[in-house]
């Protein structure tokens, strides 16, 4: 049997796979009825285009990536794995079309498949003849979304394709950053930059009347807590101080527990600063699965979206849940490590409940949210370590010793990270020059 090759990455896949197991590209597109009746290229096998076709359509594919896949062994006790055993209704006539993926910066960001966006006609046009195959391979490699780590740096620097494992870079970063933090160099400046949107977020929370109802979407978990705790802590301190009543929900399994810890820290800090009444008025709505398809519940019928809190108590027992059924939230706070989660809220909840939104996000999410900030859909935006530190400075409260240490490390570490990046960019460009990369410019 032949296994279809992925038109994007060239890897073999099981015959019945819908999506490539290596890069996620859609492998099969059912033919339009007319097409199915008219066009069946004789050389194209049922499981996809032949190797020659793929190379003709996409000459930038590495020949070794198109090497014939090893025959899949079918165990004798699993005869159903043989394709001929598949039932007729389970087999749709496969047709592979070259997929086009718009990826982020050389695979560092989420890829977006544009093949369905009406771009197929331009795909049919061969790549620009000015670019030779090796260059196209380079481009394709640079924009592939799956970052492979190969133990030996098999390619020459700048050789395109996969991101090679380079232990010397890891050690350089680790040693310089560790050394910088240990020696306190570069010195951390007290006031990092306040990006636009931060002061507006502070003003919006400051203007909240006491005991305002705030709906919180908690979209980060321990994976990004190292940065996000830093950003969100000041905002939650402020909310607790303003005696806001908040309901916290999350669409991540690790979200509710992360929220519990941070809110506990925020109120602990306030009590440590002598604000005795800093008991958070919080109700935990817990985990809401379903992604964007269940989010509209929070906008149009929060009572149905969160009928009970995480302890299983209904609205009759939980006053915040009850309040949410009769009054519109004064504010929605989206605490997210990715811009996608904020966008989801703005698309699925805000049009329904019209509550103003403040986004508390990772630095990485900030630029992608700027259009929403500009259009007024986001009222305030606090992002990154700099946003978090500046927000806490606005609260004008002394830091605990261990917090002071962590903030000092952040300020110094960011400086050292910048120095390492400058070194690496210079070395990378030199390596590119030495290997003749400038010809490809």
């Amino acid at each position, binding site marked *: 049997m032949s296994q279809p090759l992925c038109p994007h990455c060239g890897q073999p896949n099981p015959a019945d796979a819908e999506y490539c197991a290596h890069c996620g590209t859609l492998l099969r597109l059912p033919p339009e009825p007319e097409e199915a009746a008219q066009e069946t290229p004789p050389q194209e096998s049922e499981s996809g285009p032949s190797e020659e076709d793929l190379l003709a359509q996409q000459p930038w594919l590495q020949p070794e990536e198109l090497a014939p896949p090893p025959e899949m062994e079918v165990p004798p006790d699993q005869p*159903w794995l043989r394709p001929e055993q598949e039932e007729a209704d389970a087999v749709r006539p496969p047709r592979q079309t070259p997929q086009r993926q718009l990826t982020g910066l050389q695979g560092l960001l989420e890829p977006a498949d544009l093949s369905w966006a009406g771009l197929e006609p331009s795909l049919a046009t061969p790549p620009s003849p000015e670019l030779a195959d090796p260059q196209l391979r380079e481009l394709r490699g640079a924009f592939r979304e799956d970052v492979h780590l190969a133990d030996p740096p098999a390619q020459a620097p700048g050789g395109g394709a996969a991101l090679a494992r380079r232990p010397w870079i890891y050690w350089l970063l680790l040693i310089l950053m560790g050394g910088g933090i240990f020696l306190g160099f570069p010195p951390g400046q007290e006031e990092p930059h306040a990006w636009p949107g931060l002061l507006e977020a502070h003003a919006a929370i400051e203007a909240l009347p006491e005991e305002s109802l705030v709906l919180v979407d908690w979209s980060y978990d321990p994976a990004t807590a*190292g940065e996000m705790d830093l950003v969100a802590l000041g905002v939650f301190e402020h909310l607790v101080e303003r005696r806001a009543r908040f309901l916290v929900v999350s669409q991540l399994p690790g979200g509710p527990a992360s929220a519990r810890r941070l809110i506990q820290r925020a109120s602990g800090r306030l009590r440590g600063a002598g604000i005795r009444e800093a008991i958070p008025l919080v109700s935990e709505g817990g985990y809401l699965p379903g992604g964007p398809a269940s989010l509209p519940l929070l906008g149009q019928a929060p009572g149905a979206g969160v*009928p009970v809190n995480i302890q299983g108590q209904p609205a009759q027992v939980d006053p915040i849940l009850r309040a949410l059924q009769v009054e519109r939230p004064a504010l929605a706070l989206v605490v997210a490590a990715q811009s996608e989660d904020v966008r989801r809220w703005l698309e699925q909840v805000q049009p329904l409940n019209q509550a103003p939104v403040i986004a508390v996000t990772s630095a990485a999410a900030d630029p*992608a949210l700027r259009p929403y900030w500009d259009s007024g859909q986001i009222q305030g935006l606090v992002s990154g370590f700099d946003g978090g530190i500046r927000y806490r400075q606005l609260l004008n409260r002394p830091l605990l010793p261990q917090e002071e240490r962590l903030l000092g490390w952040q300020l110094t570490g960011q400086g050292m990270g910048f120095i390492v990046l400058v070194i690496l960019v210079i070395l990378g460009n030199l390596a590119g020059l030495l290997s003749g990369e400038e010809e490809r410019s």
Partner: protein
Amino acid sequence: MTPFTAALPPLWNDLGVILGFVLSLFLFSYLLKENVLARLAQYILAGASLGYAGVLIVKNVLAPRLLAPLLAPRLALQIQESLATPPLLSWWIPLILGLLLWLGGIEAMRRPPAAQGASLRKLLRLLGVLPVALLLGTGLGVGIAGAIQGTLAPQFLRAAALGLPGEEVAGPVLTGLLTLIVTGGALLHLRAGESRLLQRGPGRLLAGWAWIGQRALWLAAGLIFARLLAARLSLLIAQLNYFATQLQETGLWQWLLAQLR
């Protein structure tokens, strides 16, 4: 450890600190080389995360929202106040659909030979399609409606408002026009940047517009990279801080110093 584990014996907390530290070291060792300790920690993390998610779904989603109202009519009545639909629709149908989803899914996992029980297979498959179709259809509907209401309409209106002089314009008219040009150029580049239509005749003017959009997108990519770097460096610094704290808490620091002496 956090105050949420205070009810456990102190030994558990000590054990937790050491376990977390050791697992973190194992994972960090991936930097040196792909090794079995790093993979061991990954498998433990995957197992624990999946188990935790399973508990969360059962205890936080299915039990209180579905099973409890079905088993305890009084609770059902309380929750019913916030719903406008009868219990059959609110709970029984999703329960049945959920069970169908499981049966269909298990059938797909089991993959029995076609000769045995083919008709039952078909029936299970048919019934399993219903909940899947419901999920897909709803996802499709909210995706389209949300994109229009939350992104396309407000962003388009804002972009259009920036191009017109008047009260809507937040900055100077020139900035508004520049913004409109860049937005249009970026959209044009993404949509038709490689089209041959832009390579001849009046299309060349559009090509110039797309050229501006492409440069702006490159600049934006650089900016995103820099902010992404800040985000990831923050995570690394927080982790280094965690290692330093744990070295002190576990007493490993003193032990290491003693060994060095």
